[in-house]
């Protein structure tokens, strides 16, 4: 009993540690005071202001477009690559996997700098496209790592069975392979989307002066103080994701019947 209590307490403690700053940000979004260290009463003012603030809305728009586009393109390239890597022989596969790991394990600052230097060396103006390319680059590995385990679980004979029954390889892929690996593809997409949304360092180096994502906008405001509208926006985004996850989890829970092995 005591052990159980300690365990629960410990999990609670860690979760509190992880979520405390988030709770504070949410509280700050309702704070009727420009100073973040004083509580000036409850207000929804910042939520109204948010939609009038053009520079924040622009940054949000850029952030979402880049996150969606980079996650989508990374999912296409990554899923295709995962299928190819999965059917490779050992040596080329090891090489591919090792290179895939580079952007995941390399420091963001090095990835960001190296991409920036590449764009500069190619005399390519830094801006929206350079950020998009950079995000696709660091997103592809997450897609590959999400899809690969699903491919390994796949029964290789189902594809052959489909061909045997007269399906063309393309038809067989979309009807047999894709449905089986789709959960992995979806996970990869969401992971890539999240990573893109949360990235600051690589965007910081590759964005140029013309555009801002939410991250880079926040960074420029660190010294002079964060606008409360940003807290409001982050709260909205966080709540949206939370609701989405709860809905997805509910639906999964309904679909899956609990299976107990004896």
């Amino acid at each position, binding site marked *: 009993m005591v052990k159980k209590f300690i365990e629960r307490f410990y999990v609670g403690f860690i979760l509190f*540690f992880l979520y405390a700053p988030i709770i504070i940000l949410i509280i700050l979004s309702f704070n009727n005071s420009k100073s973040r260290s004083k509580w000036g009463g409850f207000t929804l003012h910042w939520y109204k202001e948010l939609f009038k603030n053009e520079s924040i809305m622009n940054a949000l728009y850029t952030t979402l477009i880049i996150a969606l586009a980079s996650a989508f393109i990374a999912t296409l390239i990554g899923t295709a690559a995962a299928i*190819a890597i999965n059917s490779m022989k050992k040596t080329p596969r090891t090489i591919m996997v090792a290179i895939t790991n580079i952007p995941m*394990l*390399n420091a963001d600052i090095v990835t960001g700098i*190296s991409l920036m230097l590449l764009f500069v060396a190619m005399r390519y103006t830094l801006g929206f496209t350079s950020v998009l390319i950079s995000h696709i680059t660091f997103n592809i590995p997450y897609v590959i790592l999400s899809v690969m385990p699903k491919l390994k679980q796949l029964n290789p004979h189902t594809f052959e069975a489909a061909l045997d029954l007269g399906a063309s390889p393309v038809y067989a892929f979309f009807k047999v392979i894709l449905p089986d690996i789709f959960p992995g593809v979806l996970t990869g997409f969401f992971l890539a989307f999240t990573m893109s949304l949360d990235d600051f360092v690589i965007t910081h180096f590759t964005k140029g002066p013309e555009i801002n994502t939410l*991250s880079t906008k*926040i960074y420029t405001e660190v010294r002079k103080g964060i606008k409360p509208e940003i807290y409001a926006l982050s709260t909205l985004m966080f709540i949206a994701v939370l609701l989405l996850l709860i809905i997805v989890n509910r639906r999964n829970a309904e679909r899956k019947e609990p299976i107990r092995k004896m």
Partner: protein
Amino acid sequence: MKISNVLNTKAPKATIKKSGMSSLGIRNTRWLSFPYILWMVGFIIIPLIVILYYGMTTNDKQFTLENISSILNPINLRALLFALRLSLISTVICLILAYPLAMILNKSKMKSNSFIVMIIILPMWMNFLLRTIAWQNILERTGIINTVLKFFNLPMLNIINTPSAIVLGMVYNFLPFMVLPIYNVLIKIDKDIVNAARDLGANSRQTLFKIILPLSLPGVISGITMVFVPSLTTFVISNILGGSKIVLIGNVIEQQFRIGNWHTGSGLSLVLMIFILISMAILSKYDKESEGSNLW
């Protein structure tokens, strides 16, 4: 009888022919990797070569080792050593916090492990800069902790703008990257392996140290890499929580690029990459079979 014999020997041959068709399938899938290979070469390999080029040349495109040896400049060297120290401390703290957590989560009856993973990565949906800034709020002289301490007439806690605050920020930001790989390895350990150890006379402590810990080593190594590398190279956390006085190697490099000193910045990045490469080498040694799947 004879007919059935002939049929029987033919049947396997027919299936061999069919799997020949799947090798045709493999040839067909190879082109699927071409976009990725092009992308990798263009945006992973070549950029690294570019950084190597910048790091080893001067503004006049002359070969030099000065950019790299600038790490020996006392300010830079101190920044590197200090970053090493703080990131090592953060990694150790993360490991100590994460391992028991992963074990409890693994033991919990909650079998939907995607839910557990979600809870751990959900905070990432709040912008990482904002979350770090929130720690300013908590730790400041007039922040939440001190307000509470003051209320109870307890001494103030002054850790904002100190190395401790930076370590806290690192642990906070990178703890999930330690928890998840360890948890992912632990859930894959067959319950009967643990039962076997108990069966052979090991008590729960012996089982932990002789069986579970060694078997989870690949996850631990992944976690260490995933925490150590970003901690070592951060410039954001030190900027926000460390004030302007504490300079880590990441801050030095960022500053070099901000003032347009790209060659020196690249040279210092190359030095940093040595540590990253060492981490990656250790990781790949332990992570051979999982092919990186322990990371997530």
